């Protein structure tokens, strides 16, 4: 069971790494914030799997914090969403 949970966590981590590609490619800033959402949910999943794999309930508190803070950060970044035709090299 522990090995299986770690394997599942590895899989979710790989998915998150693939989501990073969307951050780099864009093209709109809103796409990048989408990826942050994926990484937030993926991070929560990884932490919950780790909590069950290592039988450490305290890790669920980290997942709770991550859920709250990922939302907060997405809202903060959305103040700055610019139109996709504006230059982004500033």
């Amino acid at each position, binding site marked *: *069971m522990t090995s*299986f*949970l770690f394997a*599942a966590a590895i*899989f*979710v981590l790989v*998915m*998150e790494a*693939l*989501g990073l*590609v*969307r951050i780099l490619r864009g093209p*709109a800033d*809103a*796409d990048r*914030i*989408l*990826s942050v*959402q*994926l990484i*937030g*949910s*993926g991070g*929560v*999943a990884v932490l*919950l*799997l780790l909590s*069950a794999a290592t*039988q450490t*309930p305290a890790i*669920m508190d980290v*997942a*709770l914090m991550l*859920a*709250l803070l*990922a*939302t907060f950060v*997405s*809202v903060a970044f*959305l103040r700055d*969403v*610019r*139109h*996709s*035709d504006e230059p982004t090299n500033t």
Partner: protein
Amino acid sequence: MKFAIDIFTVVMVSSGVVFFMAGTVGLLRFPDTLTRLHALTKVDNLGLGLIVFGLLPQAQGLLGALKLLSIWVLVQLSGAIVSQLIAQATQRSGRQT
């Protein structure tokens, strides 16, 4: 009994991870921000939800199980609202280009 519980966990967590994969593939391959957003909501709802259901039998006590469920509800709720905000931002910038 323990064997049946373990099988349940394996099946649920695997299905959840499959939905994670589906959402990520959608994020990478769909042509437009709004379609990618639609793919991503599957991750929050079904992906995390199935993983949480699979981990419920492994949780320690009623409090642990409640915490797992409330984390899922929180991620769903905030994910849904932030998705609406992202869609609104995309529409506004689309209208002005």
